[in-house]
C-alpha cells in the first residue's frame, strides 16, 4: 500500500498522470472509486479485500479521458479488462499507467506487452461462490432453470447498472438504446427483461473478463454475472480462447475453424 501511495505521489508530482484512479473509503464498509488528482489526495487511497469494483469501466469514459493520462489501480480482473480494451482498440497502448496489484504486490506496467506477459503468468479462476451457483444451475432441470431466471428477472427494472458497470460495455450506442428497429423493448416487462439479458450475454460471450462486476452492481441482486461468465466459459471450452489475455484482438466470434466441433446441427 505504501509503495502504491508513493508511486502515485511521484506520478502526480512529475506530471506523468493527471489523476490516479484507485479506491477510497466509502459508505460504511464499502470502498469506492476515487480519482486522486493532487498528491495531497493520495492519502485517501486504500487497498483491501473490499476493493472489488472493476475500475477499467472508467477508462473509456469521456469524462475520464478528458482528464488526461490517468494511472489506474488494477487488480487481476481489471488487468484483464484493460488488455481486452486494448485488444478492442478502445485504449491505446500507453494511454494509462497501470498499477497492477496482485495479492498486495504492486507492479507498474508501462505497455500492453508487459501487461500481456504479466497476465500470462497467472491462472484465471472462478470465484468459489460463483462456481457453486453455476454448478447448481447446471444441475437444474431445464424447466427449473427457466423458472429460476424468470423469477430473478422479475426484479429487473432495466436500470442498466450491469451494463454501465461493465468495462466491456463501452458502446456509444448500445443496442438497447437503438430503436430503428427496436429489437429489444425498452419496457422492463418480462419479455423485455429476458431479451435484454440474452442480448447482453451474447454481446459479452468471448469478451467477458469474468470480473463479476455486473452481478455486484445489480441493486436487486440478480446474479447476471453468471450469464456472462457461463457464456465466456462456453467460448473457452469450445474454442480454447479467453478474453482478457492478449493485447491483439482474438475474438472467438469473429473467426472460425473449419473443424469447429458441434453435435447438434442436422
Amino acid at each position, binding site marked *: 500500500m505504501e509503495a502504491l501511495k508513493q508511486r502515485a505521489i511521484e506520478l502526480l508530482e512529475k506530471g506523468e498522470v493527471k489523476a490516479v484512479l484507485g479506491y477510497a473509503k466509502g*459508505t460504511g464498509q464499502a470502498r469506492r472509486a476515487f*480519482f486522486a488528482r493532487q498528491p495531497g489526495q493520495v492519502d485517501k487511497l486504500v487497498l483491501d479485500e473490499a476493493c472489488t469494483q472493476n475500475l477499467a469501466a472508467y477508462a473509456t469514459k469521456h469524462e475520464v479521458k478528458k482528464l488526461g493520462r490517468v494511472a489506474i489501480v488494477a487488480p487481476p480482473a481489471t488487468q484483464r479488462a484493460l488488455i481486452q480494451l486494448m485488444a478492442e482498440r478502445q485504449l491505446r497502448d500507453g494511454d494509462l499507467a497501470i498499477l497492477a496489484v496482485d495479492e498486495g504486490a504492486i507492479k507498474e506496467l508501462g505497455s500492453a506487452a508487459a501487461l500481456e506477459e504479466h497476465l500470462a503468468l497467472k491462472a484465471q479462476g472462478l470465484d468459489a461462490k460463483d462456481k457453486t451457483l453455476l454448478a447448481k444451475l447446471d444441475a437444474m432441470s431445464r424447466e427449473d432453470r427457466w423458472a429460476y431466471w424468470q423469477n430473478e428477472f422479475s426484479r429487473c427494472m432495466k436500470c442498466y*447498472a450491469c451494463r*454501465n458497470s461493465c468495462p466491456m460495455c463501452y458502446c456509444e450506442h448500445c443496442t438497447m438504446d437503438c430503436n430503428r428497429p427496436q429489437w429489444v423493448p425498452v419496457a422492463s416487462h418480462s419479455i423485455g427483461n429476458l431479451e435484454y439479458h440474452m442480448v447482453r450475454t451474447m454481446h459479452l460471450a468471448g469478451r467477458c473478463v469474468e470480473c463479476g462486476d455486473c452481478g455486484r*452492481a445489480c441493486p436487486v441482486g440478480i446474479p447476471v454475472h453468471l450469464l456472462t461468465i457461463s457464456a465466456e466459459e462456453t467460448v473457452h471450452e469450445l474454442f480454447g480462447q479467453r478474453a482478457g489475455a492478449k493485447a491483439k484482438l482474438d475474438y472467438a466470434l469473429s473467426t472460425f475453424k473449419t473443424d469447429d466441433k458441434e453435435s447438434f446441427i442436422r
Partner: protein
Amino acid sequence: MANTYQLSRESLTSLFGALRKDGRRILAPVESDGRIGLGEVEAPAQVAGDYLQTIMSAKEVAFPKVERLLSYTITPGQVDLKDAEPKAAPTVLFGVRPCEAKAFGALDAVFNWDYRDKFFNARLEKLAVIGLSCTKADEACFCTSVGGGPADTAGSDILLTPVADGYLAEVLTEKGTAILNLASDLFKPGNGVDKVAVAAKVEAAFDQPALTAKLPGMFDSEVWVDQSLRCIGCGACAFVCPTCVCFDIQEEADPKQGERLRCWDSCGFHMFTLHASGHNPREVQSARWRQRIYHKFSYYPQRYDQLGCVGCGKCTRACPVDMNLKEHLTEAAGVTA
C-alpha cells in the same frame, strides 16, 4: 391532532384478517434470499422482522415500472383506440417507513399539479398506508435533514410506532379511520407513550433550506463535476427512489395492433434528453448528476413548495459505485459559493 391508540402485537393478525375480509390486499416488506422487498402477505408472521428498509421503494404500487396507457387496433384506413383502465386493487401498504409514506406527496405533486394523471390517481385512491416508525437508521439515512423524521406522520393513514408490547397507533386520515372502523375493538385507548424516545435518532447532516437557497448560485460549481466523476450513469438511484417520477412512453406494436406503455426513466441516462438531431442539452454525466440534485432540491421547492427527496437513502444503498447522496449534499452545502 391524531387519534392515538394502542395496538397489541397479537392483534395485528386480526387486523390483517379484517383488512383482507374487506377485500384489500396487504403489501408489506418480506424477506427473500436476504433481500427485503414488498410482497403480498396474509398474516403478520410473513412480514419481515428486523428490517431497515426495502431495496425498492413503495412507489411502484401507485406508479408501476411498466403500465399500459392505451391500446389500439389498426385496419386499413382506420385506427380503433382503446383507453386503458389501471387495475387498481384496494391495497394496504403495511409497514412502510415514514420517509416512503411521505414520498407519495412528492409523486402526487408532479402527477397532478396541472393535468391530472388518472393512472396514478386511480391507484393512489385505492391505497391506504400503515406506516411503521423507524427504530434504527443507517449511514445512508437523512430524513431529518429534509424535513422528515423516523416517526413522521406525513403520508401515513395510520402510523405505528413499536413500543414494548405492541404499537402506538396514530390514526391520521379518513382512510385511517376507515381501517380503524374495520376492527375498532383492536384499537385500545392510547397511553401517551413518547414516540420520539422510541424512534431512531437520525442526526441532521446538513442545512437543507440553506442548501436550497444557494443552489441557484452554484450551478457552475466544480463540485458537481468532482462528485459525478465516478457515476456510471445507470438508473439504479432513480428506479429505487420513492420520489423519482420521470418516465418514458414506449410503443409496442404489431402491424395490426399495439399499445402504449409508460416506463420508468432516469435523468441520469444519456438518452434521456438526447434530441433526434444528436444535440443533447445535458451532454455530460456531471450535468445529469446536477440535474438530479437540482430537480429534487431546487426546482421542486420552487415549483411545488416541497422537496423531491425524503432522505430515505435508497439511492445510496442501491448505487453500484457508492454515490452517497447525504454525503454529497453535505459537501455541496459546505461549498462556499
